[in-house]
């Protein structure tokens, strides 16, 4: 892969990665949020694979394949299963901020990400680190979704968005943390989603809904 195509491939994958995140903020339907999450997983795999091809690293390409199985296959599948047989009208999430407000906020978060990543890019300027503002934006957008969305499953998707952003940051900045740490991290994320899936099922059987507005017993 020559340098121009490498840079272009990185930018295309990075762009898709951010677009999917912003797209999730523009959706109320949880099913389409999950679909966009899978699309984002594809973009993440593409980012890692491009890095792997560029560095002639078989290990990175293997990691990309593993990430693909986890983030395009298993995690969206688990989230969709938690959605289960919920009636159609319950498959929408309410949000503390409306769609237009969310999109404006995401624009502001992208600007913020460009500001905070300047020291990171200055340390080693390269085509890979130039994409860091995009991945950090996704982290911030994930946090925003977590804080504003009121449905249990949309919070799960928010958490996964946050995690996608961090994983992409790790690969772009350092070509990935040591393999044992990466394995532990992926396993932990998978377990968190399993735990949240079980809790979602219990929430639905206890409260009759996965809307978290009903959770107001515990407060001071």
């Amino acid at each position, binding site marked *: 892969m020559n340098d121009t195509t490498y840079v272009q491939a990185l930018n295309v994958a990075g762009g898709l990665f951010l677009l999917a995140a912003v797209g999730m903020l523009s959706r109320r339907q949880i099913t389409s949020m999950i679909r966009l999450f899978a699309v984002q997983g594809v973009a993440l795999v593409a980012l890692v694979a491009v890095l792997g091809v560029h560095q002639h690293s078989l290990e990175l390409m293997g990691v990309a394949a593993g990430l693909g199985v986890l983030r395009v296959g298993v995690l969206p599948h688990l989230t969709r299963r938690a959605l289960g047989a919920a009636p159609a009208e319950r498959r929408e999430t309410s949000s503390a901020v409306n769609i237009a407000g969310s999109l404006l906020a995401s624009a502001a978060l992208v600007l913020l990400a460009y500001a905070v990543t300047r020291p990171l890019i200055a340390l080693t300027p390269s085509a890979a680190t130039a994409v860091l503002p995009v991945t950090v934006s996704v982290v911030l957008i994930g946090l925003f979704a977590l804080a504003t969305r009121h449905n249990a499953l949309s919070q799960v998707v928010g958490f996964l968005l946050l995690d996608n952003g961090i994983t992409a940051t790790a690969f772009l900045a350092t070509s990935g943390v040591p393999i044992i740490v990466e394995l532990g991290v992926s396993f*932990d994320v998978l377990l968190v989603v399993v735990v949240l899936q079980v809790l979602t099922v219990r929430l639905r059987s206890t409260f009759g809904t996965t809307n978290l507005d009903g959770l107001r017993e515990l407060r001071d």
Partner: protein
Amino acid sequence: METLLLIAPVAAPLAAAAACGAAGWRRITAALGVVAALLMLADATALALRVTRSGPVVAAGGLLRADALSAWMLLVVATVATLACWASPGYLAAGSDTGHRTRWYGVLLHLFISAMAVAILASNLGLFWVAIEATTIVTAFLVGHHRTPTALEAAWKYVVICSSAIAIAFLGTVLLYYTARHAGLEGSRALDWATLSASAHLLDPGVTRIAVGLAVIGFGAKAGLVPLHAWLPDAHSQAPAPVSALMSGVLLSVAFYAVLRIKIIADVALGPAFLRTLLLVLAISTLSVAAVLLIGQRDYKRMLAYSSMEHIGLMTVGAATGSRLAIAAVLLHIAGHGLAKTVAFLGSGHILHHHGNSSDVAAVRGLATRIPLLGGAFGLAMLALLGFPPAAVFASELGIARAGSAAGFGWAIAGAFGLALLAFVALAVRTGAMLLGTAPADAGGAAVHAPRFGFAAAAPLITGLALVSALGVTTWPVQRLLTAAAAIVGAR
């Protein structure tokens, strides 16, 4: 020998978890759990002797490592784990859980203890992170053990907030790895606590500042520091009492231990001012939140949870001070608070069972006259938490205040202890209301189902109280370890 010393604290609780999984929660597996915790305690003692004599121990291909600081933490975790395992049969016997649920309780409790051991003994930040996230995963179902709507709500908040906070800490970890790689460290050594501390002067200040900030906020959330503390009172009040004891007594400090380790790196890479400012801001805000919410508190388990936030706030003040005296006081405070809070939570579990599962302060009156043994143990634990001598908390709070004033943070210390005083008054008033006064007329009715609180149930509580007082009177058996551990973090 070294390998065994480092693997046993992880493996012993794992074996106990496997036994519970295979045979269910019975008298024999419960006893096995206590044996595993005692084994861990013996191992921690041996490790402490070893590291004070001949320095750090490394094993398992460099993944596990123990120095004086980790030995001290392991000692505290093992002691509290022993008390919690010892008190578990009494707690479960009073509940009406099915065999299926108690089996899971046993499995998850021991997995939880094992995960904390991994966190403390992890030689690198990456493995530490994985272990801390594992504690969130295994405790999620322990928090939701009672299957009530409130327990479910607490479990949900706990997993979502803590996992996200820990994810933020992971971003910090990644950035630290980035700058360490840039500084020439290779592979997994670039996340190694010891290597990072030794080559901290090579790290890029701009990136390290972001990394340290993210890691402290993320791990701080797990330690109960503001701004991501909302899960704490819910989770600690809804979990079964022995689990609350472990979560409040040691899990908070295990997360706080990461802040101490990061401080070693940050102080060299950025100078002490950056992290000191950050920690002081976090400490004062945490103390403010805890004090304000304690004043109006009507639920005694939530009261204990907010008291944990208050104590973590004081530890953070000590860490911000950063002198050797301050760090030694913080480490002593970790032990003193861990033991006293364990006794208080274990006591609260029995109080709950004697009052129809109501955790309302108003439902408990005249405890000291109705159930003197329980009232006495709970009252003494609260006195210890309030900082009365001879409890270790008295000595450590004095140490934190003295070290802070000596280092010239008189204002911060005055503010912090002023807020702690507010918390003190609120705690003392509520505890007094629970222990004293005349018993409500119908108090006997609710207690019918609860088993009598005899000496067998009281033994773990009394042991905890004896330990916290002994540690307050003299620290000579652990003095060398404490000094060595403080020297690892403390300046000068």
